[in-house]
């Protein structure tokens, strides 16, 4: 049987790729060095703007993996930014570099070190589960349910660190955000592993289809035998866990925890990455690859803006304009218009030919 083919103009994923390439092209024209990648033999790492873009997009990409499915379920999770702060706060608490409590130099880190990684992840996973229970079992509206931890999360982070901001020099911890492996910054390696794991989990099991089904029609899905509350809980729990991973990367990058500023606006960037990637806010079909590209678009714009020395005050506005253009091009009416235009042109071409 022949398969239906959607017009390329209606494919949001295609538009996301085109947008990313265009932005890169503009960057390349304005600054030929933009694509330059250099290998530094002493550090064993590659350097360049492109590497930097992928590296800096790690946190948002990782969170957005979970957010994609949250949105596919027709929900949203606005607590992810706060969870980033929570992960950082607990990691730094366990590293014990607080000079008021441990004034003499020495290694006070909780042993084994793996606890410094596992405990924050576990706490974030539990918070994700908390969101999932509120939404899946108690049927709260996702934005309200996750608002609770969006507010409380930062509070918990403050309590964990007594409202202080400590820095750490502990090398194994700093490796997460600043180290390198295979010549790549370590966050890129983590991102690749996380994205691959999520994609395998979603597409090599029936989980992806179940998520889409519940997202489109929860009633019918239930009647068909899907346990939608369970699926909802898994998705929010996973998102909590992924926010924890992002939180560790973030705090390791700055070798510090910052309950007030860590992960601020991450929820917005993650949602934006998902939407740019072509997943509809109304739920249903989703694209993880699209989300990765969406996240890269956001970071590319930011990098571009920094690169050309645009003042930080106007960055937000500049970003907004580019995103607006991408989203409008992706919108349904524009897609339809372009598709009919193309069809008409083909017709004319056939007549001439």
């Amino acid at each position, binding site marked *: 049987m022949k398969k239906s083919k959607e017009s390329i103009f209606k494919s949001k994923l295609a538009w996301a790729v085109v947008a990313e390439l265009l932005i890169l092209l503009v960057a390349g024209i304005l600054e030929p060095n933009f694509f330059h990648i250099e290998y530094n033999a002493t550090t064993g790492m590659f350097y360049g703007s492109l590497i930097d873009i992928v590296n800096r997009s790690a946190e948002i990409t990782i969170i957005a993996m979970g957010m994609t499915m949250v949105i596919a379920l027709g929900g949203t999770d606005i607590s992810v930014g706060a969870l980033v702060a929570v992960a950082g706060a607990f990691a730094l608490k366990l590293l014990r570099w607080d000079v008021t409590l441990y004034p003499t130099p020495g290694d006070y880190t909780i042993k084994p070190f793996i606890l410094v990684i596992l405990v924050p992840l576990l706490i974030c996973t539990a918070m994700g589960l908390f969101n999932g229970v509120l939404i899946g079992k108690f049927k709260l509206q996702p934005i309200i349910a996750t608002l609770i931890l969006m507010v409380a999360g930062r509070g918990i982070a403050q309590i964990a660190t007594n409202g202080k901001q400590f820095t750490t020099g502990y090398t194994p911890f700093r490796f997460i955000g600043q180290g390198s492996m295979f010549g790549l910054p370590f966050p890129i390696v983590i991102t690749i592993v996380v994205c691959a794991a999520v994609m395998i989990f979603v597409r*090599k099991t029936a989980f992806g289809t179940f998520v889409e089904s519940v997202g489109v029609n929860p009633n019918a899905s239930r*009647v068909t*035998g899907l346990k939608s509350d369970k699926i909802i809980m898994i998705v929010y729990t996973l998102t909590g866990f992924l926010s924890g991973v992002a939180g560790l990367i973030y705090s390791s990058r700055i070798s510090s925890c910052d309950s007030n500023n860590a992960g601020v606006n991450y929820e917005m960037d993650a949602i934006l990455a998902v939407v740019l990637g072509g997943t509809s806010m109304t739920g249903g079909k989703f694209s993880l690859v699209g989300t990765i590209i969406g996240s890269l678009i956001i970071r590319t714009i930011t990098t571009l803006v920094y690169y050309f020395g645009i003042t930080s005050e106007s960055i937000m506005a500049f970003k907004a304009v580019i995103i607006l253009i991408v989203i409008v091009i992706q919108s349904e009416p524009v897609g339809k218009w372009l598709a009919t235009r193309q069809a008409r042109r083909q017709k004319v071409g056939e007549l001439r030919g």
Partner: protein
Amino acid sequence: MKGIEIQFPGVKALDGVDFSLRRGEVHALLGENGAGKSTLIKCLTGVNKMDAGKIELEGKEIRPTDPKNAMDLGISTVFQEINLCDNLSVAENIFIGRQPIRRGQIDWKEINRRSQELLERFKIHIDVTRPLSQYSTAIQQMVSIARAVDVDAKVLILDEPTSSLDNEEVKRLFDVMRDLKAQGMGIIFITHFLDQVFEMSDRLTVLRNGHLIGVYNANEITKLELVSSMIGKDLDEIFDLKRAAQKPDAKMMLDADHIGVPGKVEDISFNQKQGELLGFAGLLGSGRTETAEMLFGVTKMQNGDLKVAGIPVKIGEPMDAINHKIAFCPEDRKRDGIIGDLTIRENIALALQARRGMMKPMSRKEQDELADKYIKMLSIATPDAEKKIKELSGGNQQKVILARWMATEPDLLILDEPTRGIDVGAKAEIQRLMLQMCEEGMSIIFISSELDEIIRCSNRIIVMRDGKKAGELSGENCTQADIMRIIAGEKDGETA
């Protein structure tokens, strides 16, 4: 007498169809699913753009751009699917988009008063300030009709207005239609109930595969002629259905002992053998659907005992029922059946996949084979399996849902109004399929508002009234009158 003429030559879905409606006439538009009725209506209301042809209203050419525009021109439509806002009040729903304004503010008193008046015409006495979602589907349907009627329309289009109404409500609707007709309104009436066609319409237009088959005067054509012109087949073939034969040694499939959900259905006891087709008759809200939902675990059974194939079972949610090889095609296809944005393939594979569990995904090849098999078997009209299910017509959606459950190879199939809102041809196909599956040993519970199809197919019939089982009849020699007497409460008890 000025008429309306519409011509659409050259459209694929509609090929050069002419249609005319006189003032003060009820004109039935008939045809199978996909015949082009909806497309015609959509052209008329500006939902679809037509490629050729023209529409004239009172001699002037019009080009409706969208439903609102069509309404302004005097063409008002009640679509098959209820298009109202559940969470707004009844009155708000009626006046949405055209609220009367007094001193710059919405005049709520006026809205409520006029809504009440309007509904009185339908003999509906409800509190119009309460949210619509508190009322039954039938009332909601009446409200959407009331809204369409209240607009100062010259042409009223009713697309399957009676499919969710019971007899009494249909009568009320018909009274209103007669009123409107007397006032000179032209009414286009789309329905699958042929009796209603003959009761109400003056003329009939029949479409088939996008072509105009004929325009008839209602008093000059017989029901049989009409049906054969709609489907283009011999009638004998369609109505030559035989009840599934009962094997004397058939094992017990289902044994329900005083099962119930307080407040919905209570004290239901019945049994069903393998390969038996058990019909459930009764009015809307009599507990037919509630019983089905309880058997499938959509609502949790609270009282009584249930045995499936002789073994006592507890069914708390749909998955339990699926594990006991029970399947359920729900009544409200749009709400509980289709997953609109997913493809036909995904919709068919979903229940089987759910039973297998998340960790054992079906391969793409397996899904493709499954989908192709059922598309062929049920002759689902689609170019391929990758079309979104919401793009199919109602009858074809129903077939996909049926395929979804047939794929799980159930022992007991519960069908709640499987033939509602679909045409005669597809109806006969579904009935034949049911009987064939029974012959092969599947047990079927068949719920329907149409008594003749219940009688034609069922081995036994259970009649429901007010959330209770009111009687049980043998399907062999019972008449519609027998069933109706039990529904009306004139006769009670077991007559099997």
